[in-house]
């Protein structure tokens, strides 16, 4: 026979209070999940652009903070390293903002544009590597529009004509990428069309240099060789490094990262207070009983354990509904943002929040347990 599960029985003996407690914990869990979800999708949108490029080493200007505010650098930097051992090919990428006019409402909005040479296999998405798609891209003033662009940009049907920064363009097709926090919508054009749209900007100044390596080449060794060959006006980074740089920019140096980081902290505190309230009410109403246990010869450590157990049980009981609702809200966010915020649950976050919830409840438990420890067994006699 096991020990009487006092903590559990105490908790379930007052249904209403238990439900309120679970709702409180679930709410805190939900808040933490949402904030982490935003943070995570921030990181994900930062990384998914680079992970969809067919390159292992990237060149960018040191003045570039993140892709949408990139500063151009000479295309010669790419050509300088094209012949190095291990390099398969080098590919320039051009980016910039255009004023896209919604053909229906005539309102304009900033659209983020990627320009690349259609002969280069820049993208890993199969739909951008079809010969027909590349043929469409080569047509003058023809663009591909991101399906994840916000609806405010208007219809995305092939053949729709509109204005992009005072130039007449035609939608030639669609692709799926998502602009994340930097852009509400994106489009892809050929380098020739990019030059037309961004005239007088020359194609000799590029925003991102992509270096594709030969199969089996050692990324670190080639990176060293590239670094040695080039002057300090460009940064040489591997794919994980540039993703990390982009994530760091969004999470560590923008207010967006701060807001959601703060959100996690605040939710943690809210949760702690809620659980503290529940636990301390429970303790206050059971104080004579706890004192009796002490008089009977139970040590403070035992009571400590009971309160902590109650905290952990609350944590787990609140976590489960919180988790389920969060998954629902993630889906809702994806739909509402037209998939621009790829919020999704992952194992690491689920476990992290579970541990955080347990920590949250334990902290509350530790604060409220002082009352029990101080409970004077002699007082129940008076």
């Amino acid at each position, binding site marked *: *026979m*096991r*020990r*009487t599960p*006092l903590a559990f*029985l*105490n*908790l*379930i*003996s*007052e249904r209403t209070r238990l439900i309120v407690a679970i709702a409180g914990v679930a709410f805190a869990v939900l808040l933490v999940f949402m904030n982490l979800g935003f943070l995570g999708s921030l990181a994900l949108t930062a990384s998914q652009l680079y992970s969809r490029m067919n390159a292992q080493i990237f060149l960018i200007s040191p003045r570039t903070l993140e892709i949408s505010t990139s500063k151009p650098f000479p295309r010669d930097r790419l050509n300088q390293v094209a012949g190095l051992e291990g390099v398969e090919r080098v590919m320039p990428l051009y980016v910039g903002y255009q004023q896209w006019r919604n053909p229906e409402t005539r309102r304009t909005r900033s659209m983020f544009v990627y320009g690349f040479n259609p002969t280069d296999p820049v993208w890993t998405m199969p739909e951008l590597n079809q010969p027909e798609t590349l043929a469409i891209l080569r047509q003058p003033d023809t663009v591909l529009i991101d399906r994840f662009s916000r609806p405010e940009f208007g219809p995305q049907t092939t053949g729709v004509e509109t204005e992009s920064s005072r130039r007449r363009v035609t939608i030639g097709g669609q692709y799926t990428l998502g602009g994340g926090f930097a852009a509400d919508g994106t489009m892809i054009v050929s380098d020739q069309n990019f030059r037309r749209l961004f005239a007088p900007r020359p194609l000799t100044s590029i925003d991102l240099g992509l270096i594709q390596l030969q199969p089996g080449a050692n990324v670190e060794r080639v990176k060293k060789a590239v670094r040695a060959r080039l002057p300090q006006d460009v940064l040489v980074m591997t794919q994980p490094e540039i993703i990390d740089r982009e994530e760091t920019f969004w999470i560590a140096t923008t207010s967006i990262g701060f807001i959601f980081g703060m959100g996690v902290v605040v939710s943690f505190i809210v949760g702690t207070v809620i659980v503290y309230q529940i636990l301390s009410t429970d303790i206050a109403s*059971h104080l*004579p*009983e706890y*004192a*009796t*246990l002490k*008089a*009977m*010869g*139970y*040590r403070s450590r035992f009571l400590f354990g009971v309160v902590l157990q109650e905290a952990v049980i609350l944590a787990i009981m609140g976590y489960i509904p919180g988790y389920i609702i969060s998954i629902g809200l993630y889906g809702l966010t994806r739909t509402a943002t037209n998939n621009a915020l790829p919020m999704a649950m992952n194992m690491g976050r689920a476990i992290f929040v579970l541990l955080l919830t347990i920590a949250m409840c334990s902290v509350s438990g530790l604060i409220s347990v002082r009352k029990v420890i101080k409970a*004077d*067994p*002699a007082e*129940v*006699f008076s």
Partner: protein
Amino acid sequence: MIGALRTIQEGSLKVMGRELVGMNNRDLVIVRRGIGFIFQAHNLFESLTASQNVEMAVELLGGFRTKREQAVAILDKLGLGHRVDYKPNSLSGGQKQRVAIARALVNQPKLILADEPTAALDKQSGRDVVTLMQKLAKEEGCTILMVTHDNRILDVADRIINLVDGRLESDSHPNDFVSSHTQDPKAIDSQMFMM
């Protein structure tokens, strides 16, 4: 103080042969485990059944295998055999106090301290409770030290010590024949009223 609930700095207080003065908290807890407590309020956990409340006391001494049988047995003796799985709020006042007594008795302590056990009870159930206490004390061979204002139950006592304003007023033996085999503690808290 007799219940080893407070650390004592001065004087001398011996309970069941152990000097409590100067004892640290750890040892006090061990002394407490050898004493049964009955309070004015029953102080039962509302969330636990009668049996579970009693089992909490058995667990203290580690009787995990037999706790259920022990609890049921003692509740049975107190006439609560049919109420073992009831929660306190579906028991009457007298029944609750009897569960509390079961909890104090289950570990067969040599000493039971009872603080106004009948204060919250009506005459009849108060009577029943103390009669049961007396009967079980005889069976188990333990001492009950009861503090009370309730003069309706005085006749069950073997020895009555009357304390007024902290001073011993009298020490009498209402039932002559039993006075010899109870051993009251030598020192008594001056704030206690023993009648």
